[in-house]
């Protein structure tokens, strides 16, 4: 592709919708990339509560991670509210993060075969962690170890 002469408002790259304001950012024009673009923002909004809340509660407030042990998790997951919170966080953070990895891989891994391999590796890791996390969040029963709780 020829080098383009740049005007004050750069033209939108191929596949991107031109933005209305000179300084504003382009977004994907349609298809999967537009859904991905939208998902990152909507899930980001939810993660603003779920992830930031989780980090503040578990790592900063009230002794932070010092107080976390088996008994703490058992008490916390005694409430369906926290089980649901943690599961929603697990799912959204995994999809948001792995889609972010896909965007980064798009920028730095140019050869299509390698790109597919790296992306597939992340998808597999993501799926395995989703299954592992889901099973543990919903089947965990501290009464299996009555001596501690």
């Amino acid at each position, binding site marked *: 592709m020829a080098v383009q002469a*740049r005007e*004050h408002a*750069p033209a939108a790259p191929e596949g991107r919708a031109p*933005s*209305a*304001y000179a*300084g*504003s*950012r382009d*977004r994907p024009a349609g298809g999967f990339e537009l859904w991905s673009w939208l998902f990152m*923002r909507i899930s*980001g*909004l939810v*993660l*603003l509560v779920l*992830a*930031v809340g989780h*980090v503040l509660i578990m*790592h*900063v*407030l009230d*002794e*932070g*991670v*010092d107080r*976390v*042990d*088996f*008994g703490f*998790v058992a008490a916390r997951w005694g409430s369906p509210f926290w089980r649901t919170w943690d599961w929603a966080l*697990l799912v959204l*953070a*995994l999809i948001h*993060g*792995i889609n*972010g*990895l896909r965007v*980064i891989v798009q920028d730095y891994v140019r050869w299509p075969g390698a790109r597919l391999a790296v992306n597939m590796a992340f998808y597999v*890791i993501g799926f395995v*962690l989703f299954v*592992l*996390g889901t*099973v*543990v969040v919903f*089947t*965990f029963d501290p009464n*299996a*170890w009555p001596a*501690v709780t």
Partner: protein
Amino acid sequence: MAKRKSDFGTLYKGSPGQWSWLAHRITGLAVILFLFAHVVDTAVVGWGPEAYNRVVDVYHNWVVKLMELGLVAAVLYHAINGTKIMLFDFWPSTTRYMKGLSLASTGLFLLAMLPITWIMGESILNSAGIL
């Protein structure tokens, strides 16, 4: 040779956006890589108190706590900068104030890190046996 200017300033791609773009990437990458490990260490809770307490004890080491402070900073930066991105993308007219809003979001992040560093710093020094 005359100094060449890009559309956005004198630096290569140079607007505040170039640095926040990089920081957003690095913090996002750090958080997802940590999440991979974190799902596994939390899942150990399903193997009982002895196994879980041994794993979670790693988090009580002061060097790990130092990295934990980095993790909290990464999540917080990514969250605040992400909010700024949403503002620009959903209300494009706000990009007129891009410089000011970039400054404000960075300021908000640094301001939030002050008490967090104080609280977590105390815990780090405690674990290191200094306090």
